[in-house]
């Protein structure tokens, strides 16, 4: 029974850990499927986490936080589009610039506004009667079933009691699949990522498609950032994205640019993170594993997986190449 409980707890943590990765990976999917390399996911998560927490604190409403977070992320996504689509900039350079901008901007604005070393104040504050954090959703009958063996563990502990963004992430996966593979917009996004010139000659604007795809990307990345600062923790702290954007990108590649594959990769990273979190002070063969090593595990695995285990991942053909029509 104790093992069962441990597993439930690990899986429970897995869902929490995977949520921002799923949003970010889906965000990356719309961007990369349309041919725009998106290492700027990290920056988008960070800026939306900051904007979300700041707006939630000021207005006292997590929903305003969500709105502000998405808005900030969308602005950054469109900035990426402006650099890479309108001005044919290098995608990686633009992405790096956005990440650096986000890291610097959040820390200095945070310090300037809130004077807490770049943190935002805590969103839950009894003294000020402030509660601007998302509340977990308790599914129907969860309380009643709590003490039923097995079912209680699975339903009340694992499935119930998450933030609405967690549920949204899992709904977003099939939704994004539908958009990408069953709608006109998705067809065009995929076509642009493969052969922009063909799309252009078919009478579709490559730039418009890419801007739209990055708009969707911005919205999804916004969910990821807001989840971190307004749901998972009740505060923004500098660099709290901690490489999640890059991991999401890795998950996307690992999942071969497909929603289901990316979901699986995100869950894998999530479960590793959960195990790492629970195994602090783990002793293997009489040697106590350093905490840092265990915490680094998901990142190490990312490198190893990307290094060779995924086999041939066929990227969208036109990825990373600015589309220039005229010869000069």
């Amino acid at each position, binding site marked *: 029974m104790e093992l069962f409980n441990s597993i439930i707890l690990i899986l429970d943590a897995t869902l929490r850990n995977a949520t921002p990765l799923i949003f970010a990976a889906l965000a990356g999917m719309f961007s990369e499927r349309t041919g725009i390399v998106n290492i700027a996911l990290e920056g988008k998560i960070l800026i939306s986490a900051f904007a979300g927490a700041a707006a939630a604190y000021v207005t006292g409403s997590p929903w305003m936080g969500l709105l502000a977070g998405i808005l900030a992320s969308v602005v950054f996504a469109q900035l990426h589009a402006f650099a890479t689509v309108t001005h044919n900039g290098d995608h990686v350079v633009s992405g790096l610039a956005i990440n650096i901008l986000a890291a610097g901007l959040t820390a200095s604005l945070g310090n300037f506004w809130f004077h807490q070393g770049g943190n935002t104040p805590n969103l839950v504050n009894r003294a000020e009667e402030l509660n601007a954090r998302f509340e977990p959703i308790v599914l129907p009958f969860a309380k009643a079933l709590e003490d039923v063996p097995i079912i209680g563990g699975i339903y009340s502990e694992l499935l119930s009691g998450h933030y609405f963004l967690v549920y949204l992430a899992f709904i977003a996966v099939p939704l994004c699949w539908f958009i990408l*593979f*069953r*709608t*006109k*917009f*998705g*067809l*065009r996004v*995929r*076509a642009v990522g*493969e*052969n922009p*010139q*063909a*799309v*252009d*000659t*078919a*009478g*579709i*604007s490559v730039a418009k498609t890419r801007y739209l795809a990055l708009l969707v990307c911005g919205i999804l990345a916004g969910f990821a950032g807001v989840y971190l600062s307004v749901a998972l923790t009740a505060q923004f702290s500098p660099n709290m994205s901690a490489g999640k954007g890059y991991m999401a990108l890795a998950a996307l590649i690992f999942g071969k640019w497909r929603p289901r594959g990316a979901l699986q990769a995100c869950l894998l990273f999530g479960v590793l993170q959960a195990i790492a979190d629970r195994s602090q002070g783990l002793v293997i063969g009489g040697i106590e594993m350093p905490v840092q090593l265990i915490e680094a595990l998901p990142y190490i695995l990312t490198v190893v997986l990307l290094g060779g285990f995924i086999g041939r991942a066929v990227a969208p*053909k036109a990825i990373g190449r600015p589309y220039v*029509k*005229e*010869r*000069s």
Partner: protein
Amino acid sequence: MTAQTDSAADLALELRGIDKSFGAVRANKHIDLKVEKGTIHGIVGENGAGKSTLMSIIYGFYQADKGDIFVDGQKLQIKDSKTAISAGIGMVHQHFMLIQNFTAIENVVLGAESGNLIDDSLKKARAEMEHLAKEYGLEVPLDTPVEELAVGYQQRIEILKALYRGAKILILDEPTGVLTPQETEHLFKVLQSLKEQGTTVILITHKLREIMAATDNVSVMRQGEMVAHVRTQDTSREQLAELMVGRKVLLRVEKGASTVGDVKLSMDHVSLTDHMGVKRLKDVSLNVRAGEIVGIAGVSGNGQSELLEALAGIRAINEGEIDLNGHKVTADHRLSPSEVRKVGVGHIPEDRHRMGLINAFPAYEAFVLGYHRSPEYNGKIQMKQKSMIDDCAEKMERWDVRPQDPYLKTANFSGGNQQKLVIAREVEQNPDVLLIGQPTRGVDIGAIESIHKRILDMRAAGKAILLVSVELDEIRSLADRILVMFDGIIVGEVPADKADERTLGLMMANIVPEEVKALQAEETA
């Protein structure tokens, strides 16, 4: 020239004073063009004459700097492809504009969707496709990813794409470059039936034979200008060639006699599998003797490139044995490309931009690539700049490379002169065996003539020459024996004097005609 000023006839398309520059290059200079409704109108010109640019302007891919376009007598501002499509203009590009991992029908629907969900669009398109396929002989497998289809099918998809969008004027840019003669014939039948149904076809090509066979009227472009408009029945290939180049040209070089010597190059049951695990060469055997040219014909992508690269030391073979001028190469014993050069084998690669030259290098540096270790150019510490430059200048003069400037960046030479640079570099090393790939790809007619002459000179000098080309005319006029490749095998061999277009065409589709079989049986007997 009998200018076609048949003002009574309805014009499907008219251009007046079209100008277009790319930086300092004027690609189109004051172009006038009249295309009559329901005709097939050919546009010929050498590479770089501005044909493709002009068509891209009509299709809204580029914007003209000056000039007017009239469609059906209406002046039209074509600012993008969408405008062109809605005006009833369709285009089949030289490099197909298809999404490789989409199916045929998805490609057709893309950009012409009938609703927000794909399924509805596909259903509607499918019915229409079946109708068009029957009417014009444009059958294609609708649900196979395009990358798995033969180029002939891919081209049909391009035509279907245009027709599905309601094209009344169909522009085809060099449509036959990748087709077998039989596929070409089928294409022309399709164009004919389109014409009968009232579609206007504009056919851009540099192949004069096709112009003569398929068009009603023809316009000739030279160096960005429209130099003549004639009725096809009033002209001839020779006259068109002269108009294109601006001087008289020999379309077929005279092949002198040559004494055939020992075998200098041979392949014995060679197989090659590439890094994707695809078998590119299957049990290939051939030999080339001194003083003869052996031509390899075939639709591109049937193993010719791999054959050349295996011989040149660029790819490793898996089975069999190669003999290069007396040096054995097997799967276990490779020769590197530089060793291959050392044993007296020169290689003129198929794609001069990818393998033959470095575009950013000045001519004199491009000239030593592959031979840069030779003491002639390479000193103890630094390269011998002066001797490299002098040597280059001297060879440029001998080979008539223009402009004669060793310092000029490789990229700034014309295609023909770049090719001459590569050929001169390899031939001047005086190899016994020459591997030549697509010697005149992207080279204008004038330069083709001189390159062909040079190749025949080498034959007369007793070199063993292996020539790979997708241009059947080229192979037929240069080679002594012709081998045809299909899907990595050698389908058969024909002596050049017995190789007519039909025979070669059939063999390119892996069908060996009876008379060739008989010929081969005779030889083995």
